[in-house]
């Protein structure tokens, strides 16, 4: 786990996920509450992009919108565009459902609750593999499930496949979830705070493993996190989000060497440091946190795709 290389992938490589001017408001008694004020971001093929912000910034809302998981809420208005490849999926539930689990996969913060507690892990593997290949035979599904578990260093795949999720440790269920998410070679992996409920040593191993596997599968990643330290070790490119607005966009190397937005600077300053014996002394808020977006050299949104 070294610091990710600058790794700005060539401008010409395809945009896997393109979010453009995304606006979202929920309805509340006193009128609509706007949570996303025109968010634009993109992920290119093979890129690991982080979206980092505090709770209430709207970062997880974006992930749920991309996965079409917001339809149950009292959404007042959605505007803008979300494209998977060249296909517009905002408001198109059938397109989202077709993509989910096959072209797009998700890793959640809490692995245990991401599984159905009443089905064996093996059954859930078969279900997911079938979504990628409806004609897959049981023996072929079993073979691929075993291989996927071997990839995440689970040495007794048959025991895991014959278990329920509550029979696995926290670290193991995270690994099984990673294996399951990558089973169909998705183009895009959305990871929402992976491992943040785990102990630091387990989290470090989990992220390391995720990194290795993503490289092998060639998936693109949208990595959602509140932890700048984790982002620094994992991402190629970073968006910093504050209260529903992207405030800084840079490569990981640029962001950590030269943070420019007052909010990003405050976030970095507020983290207690291993090499400092003094506690950070930063303000909790400042009007300057709402300053306009700062984009670093070489980072900009691609022109709108012509569908």
């Amino acid at each position, binding site marked *: 786990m070294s610091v990710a290389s600058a790794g700005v992938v060539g401008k010409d490589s395809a945009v896997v996920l393109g979010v453009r001017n995304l606006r979202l408001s929920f309805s509340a008694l006193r009128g609509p509450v706007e949570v996303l004020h025109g968010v634009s971001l993109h992920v290119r093929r093979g890129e690991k992009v982080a979206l980092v912000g*505090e709770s209430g910034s709207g970062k997880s809302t974006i992930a749920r919108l991309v996965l079409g998981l917001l339809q149950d809420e009292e959404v007042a208005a959605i505007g803008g565009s979300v494209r998977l490849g060249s296909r517009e999926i905002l408001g198109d539930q059938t397109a989202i459902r077709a993509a989910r689990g096959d072209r797009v996969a998700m890793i959640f913060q809490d692995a245990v609750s991401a599984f159905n507690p009443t089905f064996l892990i093996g059954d859930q593997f078969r279900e997911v593999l079938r979504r990628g290949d409806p004609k897959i035979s049981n023996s072929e599904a079993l073979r691929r499930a075993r291989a996927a578990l071997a990839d995440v260093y689970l040495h007794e795949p048959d025991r895991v496949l014959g278990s329920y999720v509550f029979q696995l440790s926290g670290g193991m269920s995270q690994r099984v979830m990673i294996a399951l998410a990558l089973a169909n070679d998705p183009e895009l992996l959305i990871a929402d705070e992976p491992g943040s409920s785990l102990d630091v040593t*387990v989290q470090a191993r989990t992220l390391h493993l995720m990194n290795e596997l993503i490289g092998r599968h060639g998936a693109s990643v949208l990595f959602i996190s509140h932890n700048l330290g984790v982002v620094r070790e994992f991402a190629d490119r970073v968006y910093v989000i504050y209260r529903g607005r992207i405030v800084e966009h840079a490569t990981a190397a640029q962001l950590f060497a030269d943070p420019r937005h007052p909010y990003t600077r405050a976030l970095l300053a507020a983290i207690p440091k*291993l*090499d400092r*014996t003094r*506690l950070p002394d930063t303000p909790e808020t400042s009007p300057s946190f709402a300053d306009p977006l700062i984009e670093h050299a070489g980072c900009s949104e691609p022109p709108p795709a012509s569908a």
Partner: protein
Amino acid sequence: MSEMFLSVERVTKRFRSAGRDVTALDDVSIAVERGECHAIIGESGSGKSTLGGLILGLYEPTSGLVRFKGEALSKRRPLRLKRAIQLIQQNPLSALNSRRTVGQSVRLALDVHNIGERSHRGALVAKLLGEVGLPADYAGRSPQGLSGGERQRIAIARALACEPELLVLDEPTSALDVLVQARVLQLLARIRRQHGLTYLFITHDLAVVRGVADRVSVFQKGRLIETGSTDEIFAAPQDVYTRRLLAAIPVVSEEEAKFRDRFRAEIDVEEAED
């Protein structure tokens, strides 16, 4: 030094869980001096919260003894000892009763321990809220709708209302956003100085420990594996587990990475299996 402020003497605690005995703490001894901030470091299952629970009297040790200023602490303890040892919990959302106002929650301690004139307690609550940086009119509000940081400040005010001598802080900032955490850590440091409090700071976050603690005890699987001054532990951790903990921490700057990677060199992050 006649007697230790807080001493944990060869304490073992076993729980019965699903028909098996689980050893949460295994022959642990710790000494905490008055006025110091003593960090208890460990991951889940290390027994660090069990230690806090024993000191607070949530359970009785299976063997061994906890002493507070020379006096043995058991589960049943006089009100005077309860008052002296207070707790700040990890989750500020559940730590306040949403059916009671902020003022009622803070005032409870004043009523229980008969602190101040009855007619004066409203003003005392306002003063306590002011001390943790909240306006006095919060006393009439419900905790619902308050942020995690505000709730944690109220919990601190409630603990201060008891005029305690020892605060057990069980992961007090790990549920907070990083900007809020920085403010709450500053507040806790100021309160310790002003009130001459002793802290038992239970956490998994070594970077926080560096900034707050005078001494550190590292726990793993119920055993105390290393104890020393914060400077000693960070300069030269003796145990491989402490080094592994330090090596696993995600950092945000080159200097910090250099500091950490000293420990990383000797450790293969992948070596351990579940």
